[in-house]
């Protein structure tokens, strides 16, 4: 049922400098979203290069390619950069771009505030990166514990710039959390009830909930740190308070960096299985419970402090396995019973399932204090969170990118190059991070610039470094794909994949206000409106009067004013 008639090639409009400037001050949520994601992507490569530098240093024992100070700075920048300047902006930028389209809205709520959010994020990135160019660049890690990060132990302007940059980026992302959430809650098209929202939109909503509560905590932590940089004081109450305020943000942020990408995977799996998301209502409830639970686990980063109620955080950390399990049930239930197609987006989505699971299961393991006392601050944890973030979330990101890039740009991308990227990246990711669990078990601490030659860590570290370079190669393939596809410009139809959700009902790329007379918002009967239309059409073609299968989520939660019987004029 693929489209056999391609639309005529796009005439390439003359780009004027004024056009490019228009992008930077645009209030079109699609442009703001693309700016956010695009900036994140560029920084992803930059901070990824830093990671490869670290891995080069760690390839062999007792190396001093980098000085300890350089290593600590690079390590800090890699962590802060990836979390605050890459994956969080990816997560919110996806929402800025997709949410209005998916809910049938013409714009995002408060577009100028959304744009402000983007530019504050950019300002934060500039401040953080500038911090490396001045004396005393931040080297206390992305968490910056007091008192190491105060002015006594980390003097210099560089660390001040880090504090400022983190605060600016946090403000930017806080604003975007607000506008995306407001859009979802108050700007839905008629018929788009809360229980008709696509799974991706629900993941964005809970992401924004966490953002609205977590970013203020980060700002408080940065305020405390800023105060300590002006008036250094080594008081245990403040040191611990900083940890609490930091991790109260620092744990939800890792879920901010997860939920939108599991949403991408859910959409991709549904489309390429040819059926709607399984167990939708349970997924919604699980997402809400999961997000609330993730606000309650932050103390598991502080198990070894000896100063928090470890059992509570262990209880809440283990509890998260229940909503996570429900979500996995839904993902697996979507592909079982489907007729699967395997374009690049689907491959990334499928790989997400076992890979994120490794990260999640090792997370449950270290949610037990008796295990975490051994594993905390070792390479086991480094392996754990790279499995959730890189093997999980970034794979989910690429699933979303390969899926939605034709919609956003109006051009199709090379499937061959996409699959090459996928194969290399899967191999590279697992070769890099699987050995790290063993390294942690063998007693290698994290955040070390080098390690001794006689502790049996050499071969595993070298393996991890080789894997890192394979990941790097895979990402070069991706860049080449972007370049060559932009050169070939194979035009993308409105719905190249037979998607289920509203963004596929408009042109590629969508018009300024998303839906027009030519591409109106279709009838919304469920969270998969386009699939509903196709299924009804095929039922009508097969012979009218076929009854809907039991269990089909048809008109949804009732009371929406759209009765099951009879078509109304759109």
């Amino acid at each position, binding site marked *: 049922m693929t489209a056999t008639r391609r639309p005529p090639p796009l005439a390439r409009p003359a780009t004027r400098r004024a056009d490019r400037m228009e992008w930077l001050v645009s209030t079109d949520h699609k442009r703001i979203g693309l700016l956010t994601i695009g900036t994140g992507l560029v920084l992803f490569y930059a901070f990824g290069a830093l990671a490869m530098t670290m891995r080069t240093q760690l390839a062999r024992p007792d190396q001093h390619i980098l000085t300890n100070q350089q290593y600590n700075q690079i390590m800090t920048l890699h962590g802060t950069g990836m979390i605050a300047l890459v994956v969080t902006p990816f997560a919110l930028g996806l929402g800025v771009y997709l949410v209005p389209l998916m809910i049938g809205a013409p714009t995002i709520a408060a577009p100028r505030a959304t744009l402000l959010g983007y530019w504050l994020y950019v300002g934060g990135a500039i401040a953080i990166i500038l911090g490396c160019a001045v004396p005393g660049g931040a080297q206390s890690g992305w968490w910056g514990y007091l008192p190491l990060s105060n002015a006594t132990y980390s003097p210099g302007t560089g660390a001040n710039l880090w504090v400022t940059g983190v605060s600016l980026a946090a403000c930017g992302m806080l604003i975007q959390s607000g506008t995306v959430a407001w859009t979802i809650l*108050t700007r839905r098209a008629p018929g788009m009830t809360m229980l008709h929202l696509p799974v991706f939109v629900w993941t964005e909503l809970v992401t924004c909930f966490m953002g609205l509560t*977590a970013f*203020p905590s980060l700002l408080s932590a940065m305020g405390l740190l800023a105060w300590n940089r002006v008036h250094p004081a080594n008081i245990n109450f403040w040191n611990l308070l900083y940890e*609490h305020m930091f991790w109260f943000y620092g744990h939800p942020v890792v879920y901010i960096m997860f939920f939108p990408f599991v949403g991408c995977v859910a959409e991709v799996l549904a489309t390429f299985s040819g059926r709607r998301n399984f167990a939708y209502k349970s997924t919604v409830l699980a997402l809400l419970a999961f997000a*609330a639970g993730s606000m309650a686990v932050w103390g598991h980063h502080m198990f070894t402090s000896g100063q928090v109620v470890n059992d509570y955080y262990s209880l809440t950390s283990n509890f998260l396995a229940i909503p996570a399990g429900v979500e996995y049930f839904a993902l697996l239930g979507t592909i079982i019973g489907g007729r699967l197609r395997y374009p690049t987006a689907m491959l990334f989505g499928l790989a997400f399932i076992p890979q994120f699971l490794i990260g999640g299961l090792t997370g449950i393991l270290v949610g037990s204090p008796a295990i975490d006392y051994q594993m905390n601050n070792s390479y086991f944890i480094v392996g754990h969170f790279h499995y959730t973030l890189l093997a999980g979330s970034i794979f989910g990101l690429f699933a979303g990118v390969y899926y939605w890039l034709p919609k956003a740009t109006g051009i199709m991308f090379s499937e061959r190059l996409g699959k090459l990227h996928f194969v290399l990246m899967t191999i590279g990711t697992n070769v890099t991070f699987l050995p790290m669990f063993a390294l942690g078990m063998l007693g290698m601490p994290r955040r070390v610039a080098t390690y001794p030659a006689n502790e049996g860590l050499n071969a595993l570290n070298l393996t991890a470094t080789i894997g890192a370079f394979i990941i790097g190669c895979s990402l070069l393939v991706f860049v080449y794909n972007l370049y060559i596809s932009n050169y070939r410009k194979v035009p993308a139809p409105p719905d190249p994949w037979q998607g289920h959700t509203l963004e596929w009902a408009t042109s590629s790329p969508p018009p300024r206000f998303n839906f027009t007379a030519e591409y109106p918002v279709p009838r919304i009967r469920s969270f998969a409106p386009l699939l509903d239309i196709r299924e009804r059409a095929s039922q009508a073609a097969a012979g009218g009067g076929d009854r809907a299968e039991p269990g089909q989520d048809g008109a949804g939660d009732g009371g929406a004013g759209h009765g099951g019987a009879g078509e109304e004029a759109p």
Partner: protein
Amino acid sequence: MKITSTAPRVVALWGVFNFVLVAVLIGFGEQPTVIAIYASAAALVEIIAVLVWLGARRQEGRTIWRQAPNGDAAVIFAAGVVLAALGICFYPYVALLAIAPLGMAALTALSDRNG
């Protein structure tokens, strides 16, 4: 069914989930300051729920939204804030330079509103 009545309830429900977790935290005997951090976050969620309810009521039935003019004011404002922040890092009085772009941003925003 009003399209916007469920939304505040979803937010409020999420806040309630968090309050339950705060209650359990109190049961485990965590320090009061820490409980205050979590409880205030949960309270913030309920405040947001109220704001959503008020905002949704105001917007009920509206299908035509005011088109936003370009984002010049937002960008200038951002530049002002970043300049102030960088200024504070290097030399506090440099931050005063930020008054210019912040003022410009305010004027631009006002003229957008009127124009």
